[in-house]
């Protein structure tokens, strides 16, 4: 489950999930929901694999979202479905989506970057919680 929280100039993303894999998958969905307002209209036509190394979960989240941003900016690829496996040394993921088509996709925000300001990934009681602020 993800929600957008306000920041004076930029936009924050808060995600809550029962496990780390779904936390990272939901974060990715929340991230693309900022780029495109009709994410449900993105069809799973293309598949992309990601392998990201890292031990610090907060930086791993920032690196994961930054990788998705680069994929969108360099290939105009919108991704909407994610299968993520987080391990002790990083993550492996498979994402599906399609090339942006402005006749069908309503592009919303240009995300400049994923910031480290108040970046957190923590276990809270039985859930995992992530917060990250994007520079718009």
């Amino acid at each position: 489950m993800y929600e957008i929280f306000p920041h004076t100039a930029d936009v924050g993303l808060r995600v809550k999930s029962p496990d780390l894999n779904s936390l990272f998958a939901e974060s990715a969905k929340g991230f693309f929901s900022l780029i495109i307002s009709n994410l449900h209209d993105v069809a799973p036509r293309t598949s992309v694999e990601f392998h990201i190394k890292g031990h610090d979960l907060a930086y791993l989240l920032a690196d994961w979202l930054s990788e998705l941003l680069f994929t969108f900016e360099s290939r105009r690829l919108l991704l909407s479905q994610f299968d993520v496996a987080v391990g002790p040394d990083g993550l492996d993921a498979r994402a599906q989506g399609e090339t942006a088509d402005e006749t069908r996709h309503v592009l919303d925000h240009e995300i400049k970057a994923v910031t480290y300001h108040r970046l957190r990934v923590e276990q809270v009681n039985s859930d995992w919680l992530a917060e990250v602020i994007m520079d718009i």
Partner: protein
Amino acid sequence: MVAERYEGPLEQVTPYCWRIPKSYKPGMLVDGLIFANEKLMELIRQDPAPEQVANVAFLPGIQYASLAMPDIHWGYGFPIGGVCATDPTEGGVISPGGVGYDINCGVRLMRSNLFFKDVQPHLESLVHELFRNIPTGVGRGGKYHFSHGDLQNLMECGPQALKERGLADERDIRFTEAHGRLDGAKPDYVSSRALDRGYDQCGSLGAGNHFMEVQVVERICDDESARVMGLQQNMVCVMIHSGSRGLGYQVCDDALRALRNVPQQYGIELPDRQLVCAPVNSPAGESYLGAMRAAANFAWCNRQLLMWQAREVFEKVFGRSWHELGLELVYDVAHNIAKFEEHVIDGKKKHVWVHRKGATRAFPPHHPEIPSEYSEIGQPVLIPGDMGRASWVLVGQTASMEQTFGSACHGAGRVLSRHAAVRKAQGRRIDQELRAQGIVACGRSWKGLAEEQPDAYKDVDIIVDVVDKAGLAKKIARMRPIGVIKG
């Protein structure tokens, strides 16, 4: 999460300056100073921006104070509107967060010899032609595609490289801060990822708060300075606000990643990960500076190409060449940048790295770094407001050198989050409201215009009034928007 109110100390020093004493937090090396009036201070306390002013005071080698301009608001790491100077000979650091992701985001102003009465009958078609011809919007590139080799040249030489292609003239370069070229740029330090993001984005506006506006000189406050800048009442001008696009964002992102463990290596303790930094005189610091300068030069090329495309549109709409239309650059100034400058600190001349994160250079008359034509009046300081009210042209004043390392504000500063602005706009058509005020606005989405509506910003008149009264920069002309294009 609702932005928490700042509850720390703020002591009034003058009617336009407030201090956060360095005793506020262990680790602060200098005081924080915020330039504002009482009314603005109440707004500024409502988010964590003053806390960020205090956090910047932790940076090693920081001189005099961690400063904030009256348009300060909550950023990430540094506040937006923050200024700090570090001395490399005292272990001073360079912090990519003190420049921001949008390296050399800035503003340029182009004047014309057209007046409101000449343009009004063509305004609708002029704005629509600008919107059709100038690339705007999320991740959008433009008509100029550069090979990696060409990009290297743009990053090394700035708009001088465009002059060789007939896309800039000598005067354009002369009236750009630093002549559009920071020496020491190292295009080789810019990653291939940054090049992939930027290769088709030179000459594109982007989205968010970036814009191109057709403006009218509504009021002149200083006849002589306005005359020197070629500005007259009711004259039509074009203001452009954009930066280094994906290339610059990626340079900053790459640097933050490379610097993650560097503060630890040098025993630097920081209160926020986004403040990561490296000593200026270190391989990591030099590497960032080389790439940052390259991205800054690229940003000047971007604004040059945006202006060039605007000239082409004016030529088409008015059927005369841009030379005949007098479409000449008044000035171009950066407001997200770090520059190595000479300043007098505690009575001694020092060379320091001035970080301006959402702050505009405001050098006074006779400063050697401003064009000789402006030597008697001071450097033009261009302050965009919001798309419904006004923007301003000021000139730098002597007190800026004494109080803010030659800096002034950079805009109005947001007062509503994007979320709150959209909520406030529910059921309204911002473009129609602007039209009722005589402003033709074109945006790629309703939401984009809603997020950038005038109510989302503080009143720029109040911001520049503080800057003027504090002696940082002097008001010259108030500009009224009549046409706006947004991403």
